[in-house]
């Protein structure tokens, strides 16, 4: 043995780096600091990552503010951020701002729940049953290609300017993203896992609950995120066309009164609402997909 393997303790590298032979250059590829040496605080870096995404929006608002204050931007074209905030405060004092926001939120929530619920149910049905796929998928794919906003005039004729047309439009907008992602998510669940579930005696219901739903959850949540965006978009159009309240009506009214500050405020509100909705779905994703390698880090944050 000792003829082949040098005895322990005579490791040549233990004595420090061997002198480089003449003509050879030494390049250090990595050199880890000794244990206990000062390292950048992990907490500071984490806080840095929280601040980082806000730098661009904050910078843009700063530039906007400077342009408005120096008079480069006429307030008729684009009022400055402080003017918009002042308008928001006035509208809030009148009570119309909160009312409009709540009305719009309610419409989005109802329409989105109706649409994504239907999309989820149809997606499951078509994804799980070959019969339902044969019966429904072609028709649904055809309906999907109709731009749902093209139905606005018809909706107004049918339902007038009550709540129904807007909620139905939002529902139609959020149905198909959820339907498509649910269906393809279910059909793409690893058939080996499904076979294992079957051979281990899972009932059809248990198979869906323990294998198919968790396996399809990631694409379903992508569909939900996308549907939330479409829901807001649809609401803007729906409220601009025929409405007595809501953020869209606020914009419509402001256009007639040439109040650019209110229009900018409404755009800001849409941006905030979209960001909040996205934040919410990402929190749900982190929670329910914490087993997933891509989300495993987020679980600890």
């Amino acid at each position, binding site marked *: 043995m000792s003829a082949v393997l040098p005895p322990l303790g005579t490791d040549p590298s233990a004595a420090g780096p061997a002198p480089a032979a003449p003509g050879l250059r030494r390049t250090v590829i990595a050199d880890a600091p000794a244990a206990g040496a000062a390292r950048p605080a992990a907490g500071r870096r984490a806080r840095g990552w929280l601040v980082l995404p806000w730098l661009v929006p904050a910078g843009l608002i700063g530039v906007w503010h400077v342009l408005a204050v120096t008079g480069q931007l006429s307030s008729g074209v684009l009022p400055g951020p402080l003017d918009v905030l002042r308008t928001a405060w006035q509208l809030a004092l009148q009570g119309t701002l909160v009312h409009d926001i709540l009305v719009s939120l309610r419409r989005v929530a109802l329409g989105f729940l109706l649409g994504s619920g239907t999309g989820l149910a149809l997606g499951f049905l078509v994804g799980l049953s070959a019969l339902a796929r044969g019966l429904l998928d072609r028709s649904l794919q055809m309906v999907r290609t109709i731009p749902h906003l093209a139905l606005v005039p018809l909706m107004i004729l049918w339902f007038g300017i009550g709540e129904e047309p807007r909620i139905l439009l939002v529902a139609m907008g959020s149905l198909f993203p959820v339907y498509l992602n649910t269906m393809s998510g279910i059909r793409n669940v690893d058939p*080996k*896992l499904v*076979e*294992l*579930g*079957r*051979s*281990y*005696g*899972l009932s059809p219901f*248990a198979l869906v609950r*323990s*294998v198919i739903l*968790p*396996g399809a*959850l990631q694409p379903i949540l992508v569909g939900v995120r996308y549907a939330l965006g479409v829901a807001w978009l649809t609401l803007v159009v729906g409220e601009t066309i025929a409405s007595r309240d809501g953020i869209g009506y606020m914009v419509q009214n402001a256009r007639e009164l040439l109040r650019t500050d209110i229009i900018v405020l409404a755009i800001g509100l849409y941006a905030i609402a979209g960001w909040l909705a996205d934040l919410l779905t990402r929190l749900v994703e982190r929670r329910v*997909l914490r*087993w*997933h*390698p891509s989300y*495993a880090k987020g679980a600890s944050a």
Partner: protein
Amino acid sequence: MSAALALRGVGKSFGERHVLRPLDLDIPAGQFVSLIGPSGVGKSTLLRLVAGLEPPTAGRIELLSASARPDARLMFQEDRLMPWRSVLRNVTLGLQERDEEARRLLAAVGLAGREADYPVVLSGGQRQRVALARALIHEPDLLLLDEPFGALDAITRAAMQLLLQALLARRPRTVLLVTHDVEEALLLSDRVLLMRDGGIAHDLPITGPRPRHRGDPVLAALKEELLDGLLAAESAR
């Protein structure tokens, strides 16, 4: 507890192509049988037929057992763990209130303390241990192993073979193992079936005391014999 398996004229063909020629096979209760042979001779197909994952196109498969609902459990080359279930929940898949037993089995396969982990953080060998515990918790009358250690590195594979031997020494079961590894078949089985061209070419009983060791000269001689048979089967294709 264990079951005897009887196959009568069992065959499988897809159209004109015979994957498995009609064959008879009797496996007494408690016997460990290995199926070896070149790839594509129908070893895994036979196992899937016995597991009930696919219907045979000919013949009859019977499981004779004293238990009320005789059960066969299949373990695959891939672990097929549900990545969204913890180690413990993977073992108790489809079962209720069997946590105590699952913990005991996980300890028996050397994974005590890993119950709450997700499969993604386990190594390949650890995942196969979970899959083994998941198969054993059902107390199967018949344990079907489809190259369960085929994807593992040599050291992990040897450890898994030792583990399986130890578990079976404690509680004998009827086992049908498909493997490419002649040494593994000799180490574990009471009987080795060499498959060739969709049928069983040799039926070789393996006797000798257990636990067996790789260096055993009797096993070495048998290994030569089986390898010769395998090479003949391979060149006959």
